[in-house]
């Protein structure tokens, strides 16, 4: 382990930890905004109680997402100074725009929402959570445009010993960033949908607040079905984009060693990196990969052997993560479809085993989101900026192994502790269910402006 390895490990861990909280924030903010908007439109107190209950879980989750986000911005400079110096002219801009356009909006209006219950009108209060949802998702766009540039650098020239921006619009409309964004937010909505479905199912199994949790379930089921379909569609478009711009990543995702036309997909296979082959390839679906990746049956796909060994990503983790993510996505589609049907027919109670299954499914979309990022980031290796700069060249020169080891241990301990507390609190308040004392809820919302 050297400074590069430890810095990579630290970045991966802190990023993955941050990303436990982000997807739920992205999706649940929209659901809570919808609930409160419905309350303002209909005056139905059920929606107010939903807003309060899911809002409370949203906030417990939100807190850790915010505080762990600062780490990401600091680490570019702390551990990846050579990278930051080399690409700051172009990479810093989306980050600064994210802060000014989105992060301010989100952080200011989350305060208004939490503390403004009896200070502003109902409409203004609902508007503030809508702004939070909008800003959170916009924030994701700028972050993914920054990441998209690392995956597929555009709009720059190499000049004065660094990458300099020459075309801001190219950076802003980088197709890689936009398609990543679409795939990411829809996948995040899947997390939020299954979060609400799982907790609602848990309460429905116990016959707690049946009307409340049926309504929540119904809303989340539809949201989840739309999200999982979009996630699949955008994932497909994304894979085509990856095939065009990062062929080595696509080859690793499919463990494809030789360049071929009319490439199929083997349902079961396992890559053997040392011998540049697969241990076994079973149940072949002919031409499917060509069709998916090039949208033509006989499309040619580059194999890993066409890339020098030191320019190939680690095949096994990228391949396995990709496979597992796809499998999970299919499972979510099926479950979301059933959830919509059963909640529409109002026959959820008749299928307790389905409800139980949903409770246990709750963590899986989180896993799928993490796996997607493993594919994206490990699949980009050995490049920190695809084709321009190697990860090993991006690390800070001034930091020592001891410093990074100490900070890594610090992060693991602090994050471990805070993560455990946060999950404990989420479970505690999720189990407790909504407040039953309606009168106190209504009193705290001022009726006029």
């Amino acid at each position, binding site marked *: 382990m050297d400074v590069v390895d430890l810095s990579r490990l630290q970045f991966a861990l802190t990023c993955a930890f941050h990303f436990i909280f982000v997807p739920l924030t992205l999706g649940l903010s929209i659901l809570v905004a919808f609930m409160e908007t419905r309350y303002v439109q209909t005056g139905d107190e059920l929606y107010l109680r939903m807003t*309060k209950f899911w*809002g*409370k879980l949203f*906030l*417990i989750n939100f*807190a850790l997402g915010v*505080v*762990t986000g*600062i780490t990401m*911005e*600091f680490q*570019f*400079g*702390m*551990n990846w100074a050579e990278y*930051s110096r080399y690409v*700051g*002219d*172009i990479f*810093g*801009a989306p*980050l*600064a*725009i994210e*802060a*000014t*356009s989105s*992060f*301010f*909006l989100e*952080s*200011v*209006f*989350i*305060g208004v929402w*939490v*503390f403004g*219950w*009896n*200070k*502003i009108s109902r409409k203004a209060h609902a508007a503030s959570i809508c702004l939070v949802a909008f800003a959170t998702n916009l924030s994701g766009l700028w972050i993914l445009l920054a990441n998209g540039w690392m995956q597929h650098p555009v709009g720059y020239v190499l000049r004065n010993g660094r990458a*300099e*921006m020459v075309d*801001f619009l190219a950076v802003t409309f980088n197709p890689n960033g936009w398609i990543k964004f679409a795939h990411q937010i829809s996948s995040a909505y899947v997390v939020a949908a299954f979060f609400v479905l799982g907790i609602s199912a848990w309460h429905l199994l116990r016959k707690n607040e049946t009307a409340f949790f049926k309504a929540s379930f119904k809303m989340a089921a539809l949201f989840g079905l739309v999200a999982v379909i979009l996630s699949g569609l955008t994932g497909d478009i994304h894979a085509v984009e990856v095939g065009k711009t990062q062929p080595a990543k696509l080859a690793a995702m499919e463990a494809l060693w030789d360049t071929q036309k009319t490439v199929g997909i083997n349902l079961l296979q396992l890559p053997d990196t040392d011998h540049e082959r697969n241990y076994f390839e079973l149940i072949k679906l002919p031409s499917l990969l060509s069709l998916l990746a090039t949208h033509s049956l006989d499309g040619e796909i580059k194999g890993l052997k066409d890339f020098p060994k030191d320019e190939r990503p680690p095949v096994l983790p990228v391949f396995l993560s990709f496979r597992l993510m796809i499998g999970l996505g299919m499972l979510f589609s099926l479950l979301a479809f059933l959830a919509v049907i059963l909640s529409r027919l109002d026959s959820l109670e008749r299928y307790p085993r389905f409800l139980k299954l949903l409770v246990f499914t709750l963590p899986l979309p989180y896993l799928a989101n993490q796996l997607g990022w493993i594919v994206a980031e490990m699949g980009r290796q050995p490049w920190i900026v695809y084709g321009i700069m190697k990860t090993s060249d991006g690390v*800070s*020169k001034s*930091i020592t192994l001891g*410093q990074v080891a100490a*900070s890594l241990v*610090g992060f693991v301990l*602090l994050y471990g502790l*805070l993560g455990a*507390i*946060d999950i404990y*609190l989420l479970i*505690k*308040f999720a189990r407790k269910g909504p*407040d039953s004392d309606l009168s*106190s809820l209504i009193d*705290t919302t001022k009726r006029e402006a």
Partner: protein
Amino acid sequence: MELQIIWFVLWSILWAVYFMLDGFVLGSGMLQNFVARSDIERRVVINTLGPVWDGNEVWLITAGGVTFAAFPTTYALMFSYLYTALLLLLFSLIVRGVAFEFRGKVDDPRWKSLWDRALLVSSFLPALLFGVTFGNLFRGLPMDAAGYHGSLMSLVNPYGLVTGILFVLLFVVHGGLYLSVKTTGAVKARSVSAASAAWIPLLVVAGAFLIYTYPATHLFDNFLAHPGLLVVPLLAVLSLLGIKVFLVKGKLLPAFTASSLTILLVVATGVVGLFPNLIPSSLDTRYSLTAFNSSSSPYTLKIMTGVAILFLPIIIAYKVWVYRVFRAPVTNQDVLDNKQAY
């Protein structure tokens, strides 16, 4: 050329506003254990901060992001050279954020007092670390062609420490005044006393800082070359004295305004002295990082200027609106009424 000066100014303003806004949050966090005695009083203190702390912290994120976008070389070297100090800062800010959110979530006195203590430490450390860091930036970092020759311990020099203590005391006074405007009854009375009591050592340390700055840094070079600039530190001193004048008269909001101005003007004094350096080298001025040799390309700066012109007025507008919505002092009843309160 001109764009680089504009961004030096904007960079300075972001830091100054961040210190002014987070300064009272950090100061209130340090004082919470002293001005509040009962659980409800402690809740009142953190609920005065609730609607604003997160939005205030974003000024730091933006200052960081703007350093990255406008002065990438400075961002890269500053953050990697000050690795351990920034790590401690990061950990403190993380703990502070969750302390607000977690404290009220379990109804157990030991749990609450744990987070009260966490809030104290995680408010004190950033104040000290920011002060020590900026003291060292004023002084210059030991860097040359071979890179950085300092360490965490080399930051802990007498001048760095004086600046650190200056920041801590500035924020304590500022936080005490914020709480005296934003609370009522006993908490208000104790906050006023805390601010008055901390003002005297603040005056002493501010005087020491000003005098010590002459031999310890090159900040005075710019002021001696352009004596008209001395109006900035002069106004800083006047605002500092103004705090006491208003306190004696019992005018709390003007006193808080004076402490806000003091923080802005202390930072202004520092950056006017630094210009055009962002980080001077204490070894060889040829290796100083300046607004001119560490900036982004003119194209990027132009884009970023457009972004600033577009978004800063909007940000300021809704921030002002929020401070107006939440201008009334927080009472025990307010905290009890809002189930989502901290």
